[in-house]
């Protein structure tokens, strides 16, 4: 994170008392800045058929060298998670974990109703949202988590990380997972298949998605695409792009009803993962208490006051010492005077 002008002004602002360090969320920047080259994913739950190809392909691609699930000691194996009391046939993780970066879940509003029918059913896809202003990056004391300039991908360097797990506390979406079972553990999170771009490839979940539910592309294009879809009327047909927003593959589909909101446009200051759905987002695993506030500001409003506080406290301490010494001496002299 570069120190921008706003940061600098706050950093050098001379705040006097401790009380003023009680940080207040600022209104200075409602959004993070989007780099024109930033890449991300648009997930459209109305297109998702729950085949979980994305999850399987994610594991395969990330178990390769450079991937977020790759470990030298387990090279060549894919960390599938089999059901506890069942045959090891399907990869069946229950939630994000040190072995699972990407997760498809289903929401069924009518418990007794038919699955997959009506406006109360939806799939949801969980993985790192690659915030424009990531809380995890701002709190990491050793800069193991970094936001890449250009692509905006939030990457993780396991050699820097010393394992304080502050990123897990900070992430509003509960994304970073920890390798609790290991003596030499790392944080595990989706890095948008950062290792595959050099090979001319892109996010594995989108490459494997047969319906276009997971769509890869530049965030500015994805934002346009998402907004365009919200203008469509249910029942119309629309030529949905598949795999990449800038690719040639298309599929014609009947438009279903959308909730009039693109999740990720503003949440937590904006994210590079965008989400469209036919069901309220509160029901799809997003904490309703997450606001549009830029997260790093919460702690920066405190940290930026620290230099001024150091100076204030040092000066106050010195002045107090000098003053009390003088007073003490005067008192002593007076007492001596009395005695004489």
């Amino acid at each position, binding site marked *: *994170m570069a120190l921008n002008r706003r940061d600098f002004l706050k950093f050098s602002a001379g705040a006097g008392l*401790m*009380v003023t*360090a*009680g*940080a*207040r*969320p600022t209104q200075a920047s409602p959004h993070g800045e989007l780099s024109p080259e930033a890449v991300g994913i648009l997930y459209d739950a109305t297109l998702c058929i729950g085949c979980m190809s994305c999850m399987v392909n994610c594991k395969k691609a990330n178990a390769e060298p450079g991937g977020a699930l790759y470990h030298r000691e387990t090279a060549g194996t894919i960390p599938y998670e089999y059901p506890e009391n069942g045959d090891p046939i399907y990869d069946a993780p229950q*939630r994000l974990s040190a072995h699972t970066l990407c997760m498809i879940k289903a929401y069924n509003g009518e418990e007794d109703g038919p699955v997959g029918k009506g406006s109360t059913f939806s799939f949801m896809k969980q993985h790192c949202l690659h915030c424009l202003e990531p*809380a995890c990056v*701002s*709190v*990491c*004391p*050793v*800069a193991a988590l970094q936001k890449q300039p250009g692509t905006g991908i939030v990457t993780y360097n396991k050699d*820097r*990380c*010393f*394992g*304080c*797990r*502050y990123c897990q*506390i*900070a992430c*509003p979406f*509960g994304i970073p997972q*920890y*390798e*609790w*079972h*290991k*003596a*030499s*553990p*790392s944080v595990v999170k989706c890095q948008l298949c950062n290792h595959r771009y050099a090979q001319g490839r892109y996010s594995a979940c989108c490459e494997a998605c047969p319906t276009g539910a997971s769509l890869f592309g530049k965030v500015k294009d994805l934002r346009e695409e998402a907004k365009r879809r919200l203008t469509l009327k249910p029942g119309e047909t629309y030529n949905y792009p598949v795999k990449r927003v800038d690719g040639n593959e298309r599929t014609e589909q009947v438009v279903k009803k959308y909730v009039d909101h693109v999740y990720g446009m503003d949440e937590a200051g904006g994210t590079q993962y965008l989400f469209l759905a036919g069901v309220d987002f509160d029901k799809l695993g997003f*904490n309703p*208490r*997450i*606001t549009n506030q830029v*997260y790093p500001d*919460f*702690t*920066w*409003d*405190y*940290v930026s006051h*620290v230099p001024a*506080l*150091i100076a204030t*406290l*040092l000066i106050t*301490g*010195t002045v*107090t*010492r000098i003053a*009390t*010494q003088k*007073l*003490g001496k005067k008192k002593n002299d007076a007492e001596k005077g009395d005695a004489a």
Partner: protein
Amino acid sequence: MQSNPNIKTWTPATIVMVALILLGSGVALYRMLYGLGAATNMNDGYPWGFWLGLDVLGGVAMAAGGFIIACAVYLFNWKKYRPIVRPAIMTAFLGYLMAVVAIFLDIGHPFRLPHPMFMWQYHSVMWVVAMHVIFYTTTLALEFSPMLLERLGWEKARKAVGKIMVGAVIFGVMLSTLHQSSLGAVFLIAPEKMSPLWWDTKLPFHFLVSAVAMGLAMVSFETMLSAKFLDHKVDKEIFYGLARGILIVLGFYLLLKLYQLFAVASPNMAFDGSVEGNMYLLEMLVGVLLPIALLSVKKYRTSVSMLFSINVLVIIGVILNRMNVCLFSMESYTTWHGAAYSPSWKEFIVSLGIISLGVFLYKMSAKHLPLFSH
């Protein structure tokens, strides 16, 4: 100078402490070999557990007495408290060392503990906290060194340290003030997880004020213990003075907490029977309301045995507060998230071992170092 012959090394309490230290070391070794998952019940919903709440947050708050008493004596020139400067500094020094031991065991890669020193990321409160721990522990070592130098009879070095002592105290007061509040600031990043009963932009200030109350109570508590068990003769006026301090600080803290309850959260939240509400009430009752009520009565304020109980209440109350901020304030979020946590017996044993090590070292320094000479 000689070791104090009035303090016996091997008493039943010491034997228990040493046993706990050995037991804790065994479990700590197990944690080093097999990892956090094998030794603790922490999980992705509760990445911070009992060690962080008790040993790190609680331990650092307990150590606050060091900077307060040093400030009172060296900066405010309140000579009355000179007899307890050394024990207070010793407690702070040991408290920080114990916290460092706990952090060492708690982080995923213990041997990368120095990483923040050369991998700077000054946007992070955690980095600020790490710097404070490093600098303040060093400062405390310097403030503590005269005791060791006197014992060794190194007069020249003793005098050299004496010359920079006031500077070290001013530096230490600054570091400690900021460190206590920075520990609260760590949690500012989680407004959507924590209950509004605790989360507020003024959390750093709450941490600082409660640490001052805790520090005063801790100094009073341990001075009473060392008067009884460690051959330390002190004037009762010191306890009365500390009690007045606790009353004033807790009164101010109560105002802060009430403002928080009414302006940020709402009183219903405390009384809705939820885990957060109940824990909040317990913390306030034990650590704030009861001590204030008792201290307001002059008869209790001037009774050393009553003050002992009040000190214990304040210490437990502030530890509860740290536990609440670290664990219970996120209860609804983590439950919604499908996570649960209760500390494993191994976590308890390690914590007990760390605390025992602190108390044991304090006793040994009372015997072998000029801790109570002034």
